């Protein structure tokens, strides 16, 4: 299977690529439309410098060449939600050239996916067909919003890799703050090119699946499409070059248009805009302001905390999660040696609580510092793992610190062996009959005694001490 992706990432910017209209998602229809966006007579596009900077920044993040000279072209076609009758894009001279993105596979190896180019273009508006049975409405709020189209080489060879690739792109752009990565709102979507061939054969005919907006659908669509093509070839047929749509209900791809109906977009340089010229200083400036990228962070986690490459890459994929992790570690030096535990507590316990309340880690009621404090209590044996989970739940709802809760509820672990011994003796004397049964060979009753002691101590007895003393007493 040979797969290449064209990712469309909406640039994080307050205003559109060629007009000053707002880009806020979900506003009432046609409330964010300037004269330029509506293509009124005599209106002219003016490039938004911030979007150019964002594209350069993204290019640097994709380890790509930045082209100091690039040109805006018009892509001409008619559609109701394309007010100008053309989309301003970059065809021959894109702003960003060849680059590469590394993906980390489950088996611990990494693979480079080559980037062909990144170019700037305008988004179209939206046609609303479901508002009225006999009419189509057009919402131009999205018309003119800045997109980066990131085109990969066909270096991807499975749905899994495609998923990792788009996660990585998303991760890089979110680290750079050049795209909000929100796939549900369409801020990041992809067209996927799929073809199949026998090993070492030349490339097969490809089909393009348009406009996929979730990683799950991308993987499903690729798997379905590859199977479909293989079946056609095995049945002796040929693949026709088609543009397809993926039906998320049925999980199948279906043709949108064939090559014969393909548009002639009549690209030509937009005479309303001058070529984009960028100097070295500007590129250097942007480069210097880029903080840590995902790959660098993965390296740091491996080197400083001894995490495995796969664990480090899972942890870093979402910048907000990784930032949270860093904050926890930073809150107490002692935690540096427990990075794996911190990582587990974030990805299991904290996440399950966040998910239950439908919260994002950036709005977590438990601050990184507070989680750090809890983990310190755990790793210094002040509380047990079981108690720690209960404390976290309490922290989550009451927003009190771990120390406060442990103190107030008296949850500190019982580590005084004579104290534990007294309780054990009490339990054993109350259950003399069972002690006898144990002694006559029913050793399974050991756990019953443990349970009784824990009940008596409200779970605070140090399990290791408890086991040791109990065993001694019974034998």
């Amino acid at each position, binding site marked *: 299977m040979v797969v290449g992706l064209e990712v469309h990432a909406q640039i994080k910017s307050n205003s559109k690529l060629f007009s000053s209209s707002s880009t806020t998602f979900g506003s009432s229809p046609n409330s964010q439309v300037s*004269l330029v966006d*509506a*293509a*009124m*007579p*005599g*209106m*002219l*596009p*003016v*490039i938004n410098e911030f979007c150019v900077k964002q594209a350069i920044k993204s290019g640097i993040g994709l380890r790509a060449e930045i082209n100091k000279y690039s040109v805006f072209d*018009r892509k*001409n076609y*008619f*559609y*109701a939600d394309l*007010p*100008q*009758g*053309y989309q301003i894009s970059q065809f021959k001279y894109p702003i960003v050239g060849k680059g590469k993105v590394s993906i980390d596979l489950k088996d611990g190896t990494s693979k480079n996916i080559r980037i062909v180019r990144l170019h700037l273009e305008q988004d179209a508006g939206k046609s609303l067909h479901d508002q009225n049975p006999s009419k*189509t409405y*057009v919402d131009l709020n999205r018309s003119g919003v800045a997109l980066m189209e990131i085109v990969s080489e066909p270096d991807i060879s499975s749905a899994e890799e495609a998923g990792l690739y788009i996660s990585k792109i998303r991760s890089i752009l979110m680290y750079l703050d050049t795209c909000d990565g929100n796939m549900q709102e369409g801020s990041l979507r992809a067209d996927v090119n799929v073809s199949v061939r026998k090993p070492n054969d030349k490339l097969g005919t490809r089909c393009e699946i348009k406009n996929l907006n979730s990683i799950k659908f991308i993987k499903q669509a690729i798997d379905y499409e590859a199977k479909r093509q293989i079946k056609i070839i095995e049945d002796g047929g040929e693949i026709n070059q088609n543009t397809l749509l993926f039906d998320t209900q049925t999980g199948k791809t279906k043709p949108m248009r064939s090559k014969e109906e393909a548009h*002639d977009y*009549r*690209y*030509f340089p937009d*005479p*309303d*805009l*001058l070529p984009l010229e960028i100097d070295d200083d500007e590129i250097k400036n942007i480069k210097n302001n880029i903080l840590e990228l995902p790959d660098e962070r993965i390296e740091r986690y491996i080197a400083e905390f001894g995490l495995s490459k796969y664990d480090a890459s899972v942890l870093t994929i979402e910048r907000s999660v990784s930032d949270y992790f860093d904050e926890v570690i930073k809150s107490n030096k002692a935690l540096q040696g427990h990075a794996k535990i911190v990582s587990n507590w974030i990805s299991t316990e904290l996440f399950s609580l966040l998910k239950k309340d439908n919260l994002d880690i950036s709005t977590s009621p438990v601050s990184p510092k507070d989680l750090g404090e809890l983990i310190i209590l755990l790793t210094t044996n002040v509380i047990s793992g079981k108690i720690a989970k209960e404390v976290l739940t309490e922290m989550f709802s009451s927003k009190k610190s771990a120390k406060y809760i442990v103190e107030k509820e008296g949850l500190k672990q019982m580590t005084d062996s004579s104290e534990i011994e007294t309780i054990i003796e009490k339990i054993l004397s109350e259950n003399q009959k069972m002690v006898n049964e144990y002694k006559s060979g029913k050793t399974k009753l050991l756990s019953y005694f443990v349970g009784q002691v824990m009940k008596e101590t409200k779970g605070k007895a140090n399990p290791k001490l408890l086991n040791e003393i109990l065993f001694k007493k019974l034998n």
Partner: protein
Amino acid sequence: MPFKSIKDAISNIESKKISIRELNLEFIKKIKDNKNLNIFIYFDEKKIINQIDNLEKDNSNKKLKGIPLAIKDLFCTKDMPTTAGSKILENFNPTYESFVTQKLINDGAIFVGKTNLDEFAMGSATDTSYFGNTINPLSKKDNPLAPGGSSGGSAAAVAADLCLGATGTDTGGSIRQPASFCGVVGIKPTYGLCSRWGIAAFASSLDQAGVFTNNVEDSSILLETIAGFDQRDSTSSNVNIPNYFDNLNDDLSGMTVGIPKEYTIDGMPEEINLIWEESKKVLENKGVKIKNISLPHTKYALPTYYIIAPAEASSNLARYDGVKYGFRANGISSLDEMYEQTRGEGFGKEVKRRILIGTYVLSAGYYDAYYLKAQKVRKLIANDFKEAFKECDFIVTPTAPSAAFPLNEKKQDPIKMYLNDVFTVPASLAGLPGISIPFGKDKNNLPLGIQILGKHFDEQLVFNVALSLERSSE
């Protein structure tokens, strides 16, 4: 008519010899008396009175306070509809004011109306307008003549004394050629001197605003107002605009004029060569050195222009689709049908012809042979001028290969019509400033124009030469 010049009108208003109201009422009367010339697409007396009322309440000093001007109906105006001479914008009322007209309003000018033009400025006789053709005011009764185009309405408005000045746009000669046909002064400045913001686009890389006036002094006054940088137009130049009028100087001694040998065509009336010779003589007497120059790629200018301009137009006019504003055809049942019917009925024949040419030259498989090649030739033509200006300070040529021709004479033959632009198109492709001034007559006593071309942003010298030639012919 009390005055034929803006300069005189300004000083008489200032010295209170005439009021703004008196001045404008005379022009209103004249406009009403000349309705048969079909110069205006939009004229509403009440709108003019409103403007007079407002100016009378305004105590500030404004350079053009009360000066009646006509506006080519390609400039979007807030208080008057804008049609571009097309059915597709028949009832279009912009909510915005173009950069150029806003500057004129800021300086206190009064807009008497919107003038007729070739549809979307595509034509050389003001005969492709949806609102009918304009008649050249210099026509004899039994022989109506074309005013030239595409800014024929504006040129005719000045020639018929229906205003003291008018705006125009020039893509391949649309100011200079009608100025020549109507016997008035018309300047197309350097590409980028005036913002295109708010002017319905024909060919973006060529379109440039300019003005018509009765004389060179007035031309310099008006151009100064409409020139200037505008950040809303990415092709607008941020250059210093000199005070053209104050700097007018007809002393040209020590200068060199370039006379390009390529500016002549077969069948050109002899009088055109005679006035060209005459202009050389005048300049020579003023101490100007005559230099014969060659602009070797001139013969490719017309075909180059008729590839680039329609290519850009085919894309620029895609926005007129019936979806958002303007005309939408009735009885349609699908999106494709809406496009076909709306554009089929909304555009005239010439506009459709150019959209087809433009679409063709940009098509896959033809792009390299036409559009790309034309862009290369355009560079060669610009380079011709660059080389020539190493040897001379300015260039003098005839404006058009003929005087005004009878209405409809060339309407059936687009190639003949396109030939009208043969002397004006090269400077457009090179983005250079050019002015046409009336300079002599043909054997039928119709005015002929001389064109003066300058270096980029050298409008001042273009005005100075024009003033010098104008004074000699008085």
